[in-house]
């Protein structure tokens, strides 16, 4: 197997030795946590298979946002549209929250916010409304026909007021606020195909649910759907892969040989800080593991490490989609897509290394 830099306690070693040390560490641990932060599908599959073997836990650093969104779905429901459909159809766009283009810099282009929707029956420039703007993101502000500024504290109330107003209910708002909101509610109702784009980082689950409620109400008379700018795309890769393999998203434990999903019990950080877990397999492109991992030895698969003390074993792996072909969640298509290697190299993939660790465990078991 080709290799990049590998080390044990900072000492350079061949890959095979690093793999063996990783297997030993996992075998000796009471509970290993697998944090699949930067993995393609193959990497997540290999991590889940290995976690199943050793009774470990699967989590992703983006789980908080991913599960916030998922909680809305599994508690209420969701309307979702692909960016391409949105770009081609949406004559009305409601932007919700701030930081949209910071999280998704290509958003304006991908959603074609400055374009005329190709498949609209009467193609005209889109009506764009924005609630929860914070005065930044100038390029987005320039496109919006109507903007209401709000911070994270007032935005949920604003969404609720918008939903109530849309439903024809009385809204207890100051006259000036109501005057600002009314044209927006009317604009949404005039949509032929409306799009809500929101930032889940700036909304709590209840506010997102309120937004879905608004969209559900609008769908009684017209068409509307939503698109989240999301957290990390790779959280979605792990959610999908874990979904078909275990039935559940990340924060799933395999210690009892059948999967158990519990967002609190199987949170990597809590498990490590509480001392329940005593080893971390960390697959990431970051140079240093988070400070909260300092209590446990870390097996780091990813970019070359900056030398954090608790990185016991370090194995440099290739970047999926760059060093090797990969399948991963693609935000632009909202599906798993095939990425050809842009700079093919001989660095091993996460999946290859994890499978080697599993094989090393087998050999020792024999």
């Amino acid at each position, binding site marked *: 197997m080709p290799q990049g830099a590998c080390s044990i306690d900072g000492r350079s070693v061949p890959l095979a030795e690093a793999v063996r040390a990783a297997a030993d560490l996992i075998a000796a641990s009471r509970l290993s946590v697998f944090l699949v932060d930067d993995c393609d599908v193959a990497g997540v599959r290999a991590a889940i298979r290995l976690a199943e*073997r050793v009774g470990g836990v699967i989590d992703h650093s983006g789980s908080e946002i991913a599960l916030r969104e998922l909680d809305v779905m599994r508690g209420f429901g969701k309307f979702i*549209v692909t960016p391409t459909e949105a770009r081609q159809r949406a004559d009305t766009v409601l932007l919700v929250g701030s930081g949209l283009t910071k999280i998704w810099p290509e958003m304006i282009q991908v959603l074609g916010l400055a374009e005329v929707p190709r498949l609209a*029956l009467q193609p005209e420039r889109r009506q764009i409304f924005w609630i929860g703007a914070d005065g930044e993101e100038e390029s987005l502000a320039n496109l919006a026909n109507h903007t209401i500024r709000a911070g994270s504290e007032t935005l949920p109330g604003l969404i609720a007021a918008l939903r109530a107003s849309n439903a024809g209910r009385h809204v207890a708002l100051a006259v000036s606020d109501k005057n600002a909101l009314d044209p927006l509610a009317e604009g949404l109702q005039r949509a032929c*195909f409306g799009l809500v784009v929101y930032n889940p980082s700036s909304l709590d689950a209840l506010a997102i649910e309120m937004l879905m409620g608004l969209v559900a109400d609008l769908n009684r008379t017209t068409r509307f*759907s939503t698109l989240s700018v999301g957290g990390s795309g790779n959280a979605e890769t792990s959610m999908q892969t874990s979904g*078909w*393999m275990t039935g559940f998203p990340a924060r799933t434990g395999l210690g009892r040989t059948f999967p158990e999903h519990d967002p609190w019990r199987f949170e990597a950080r809590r498990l490590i800080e509480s001392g329940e877990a005593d080893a971390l397999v960390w697959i990431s492109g970051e140079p240093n593991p988070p400070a909260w991992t300092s209590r446990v030895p870390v097996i780091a698969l990813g970019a070359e490490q900056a030398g954090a003390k608790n990185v016991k074993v370090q194995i440099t792996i290739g970047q999926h989609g760059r060093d090797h072909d990969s*399948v991963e969640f693609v935000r*632009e298509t909202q599906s798993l897509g095939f990425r050809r290697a842009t700079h093919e190299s001989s660095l091993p993939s996460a999946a290859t290394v994890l499978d080697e660790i599993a094989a090393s465990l087998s050999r020792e078991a024999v």
Partner: protein
Amino acid sequence: MLTCLRGGRIIDPANGGERTGDLFIEDDRIVAPPVGRTADRTYDVTGKIVMAGGIDIHSHIAGGNVNTGRLLLPELHPGQTPSSANLPLSAARWSTFETGCLYAKMGFTTVVEPAVSPHHALHAHLELADTPIIDKAILTVLGNDDFLLSMLRDGESASAIADYVGTMLIGTRGLGVKCINAGGATAFKYNARAFSLDDVVPHYGVTSRAIVEALQRAVIDLKIAHPLHLHMNNLGIAGNVDTALATMEAARGLPLHLAHVQFYSYGTEGKRGFSSAAARLAAAINAAKNVTVDVGQVMFGQTFTVSLDVLRQYNGSRNARPNKWVIFDGDANGGGIVPYEYRRSDFYNAVQWACGLELFLLIDDPWRVFFTTDHPNGAPFTTYPDLLALLMSRDLRAQWLAEMPRSVAEMTTLASIAREYTLDEIATMTRAAPAKLLGLPDRGHLAPGARAEVAIYDDDDNDRAHTFRAAHLVFKDGDLVVRDGDVTHYRAGRTLESRPQFDGSIERRLDAYYDEVYRAPRDLFMVHAKALPRPDLFEDVGLRS
């Protein structure tokens, strides 16, 4: 290795029906009784039923929407029992691993995932790769895609459309072509709330009928073995038997498969305006020899519905049990996931249950009616044993009917039907006929040369559900994978595909289209074998001669 299954009751309708005797397996094939050789291993299956491995032509087991169902409903599949060490994740309920094991346990060895939109084909194949033991295939869904609708609007030739269908089938590694509410999902994006055969898709100006006819023609011209697999308009609506009858007429005598027809067998009689029209539909199916159907039987209990008929799923979301849903306006079809609990005490659900059984029992020819629950839409596939028992026993049906609202018996003909399926008819419907319909000549029967996919059941005449719930032995490609109802080990199943010939100039045109419309390389969506854990598991089933 030569294996002898000694003394079984062999039910093999494709080869003359029933006989008692020995069956020989050499490696992965059925062989003629060898002369002058002793078997390496012998299983005494005296008194047991021996059939070819079961084939399910329509079961939603993989793909983005199915996965959304898993994630939507964690409370419905908590873990309970431990996995055995050699069957990792087999106890992960609703996982792909469990799916493969549960099918194998019932003696099924081939399953078709019938609804994969092109942009989720890679996802579906990844899931199928993690579905052990059984062979799998997908049907590629077309008929709401902008490219096809634009071709029809622009009056492009049948051969150009066939080229497009051919390249989409190959790019998605599909076995056949499915169409789901032709044009309806697109019309829903233009706010249509109902969409019938002669309704026009806004913007494109083409009717649902024209889309179906074009796809049906393309499938025939491309010599794809499996006829167009059609999910018709107006699923689940009272009075929709008229849609089914009109769609059969629209087939113009050409081959057409109609999916889950139970959901289209409804009349409008009675005080609730909902009745069974299954007898009428069955009579029409009996007369239309070009048409095959699968039933999509309803069985009672909790399930979730998953469909690329997003219009229908949106309309159905108001009846979600529990009350949550996902409505996905995806590229082309999109989809909807709506949980549902069919209740025996619910008049509508009970009529649906009766409609399905009426269709099974009133369609004469078991070669043209296929055994499905449209998993999970009518019921999970794990209800198959109970459904088989119902088909084989009039008394059992009467017992079930007695527990339902009395008005159900009045709105259906079920109580009057005496027919009981024979084992030969069961084997036809679940083995021989599906193999023929899908173009798999070496499956579904037990003649020498067939794949050694064999299910052996205890012959319990008093409890047919028990017979079919857990096979005594199951061989997959000659490998014993189930013993006494338990899966013994994993093996990798194949993925069946069809690779039609077409004019390759369509590729350049499609590449340019993807660059312009999706602003992404078409390659992103293609199913490359090397993107899968095992690139070597595809099997080209060939074309119709």
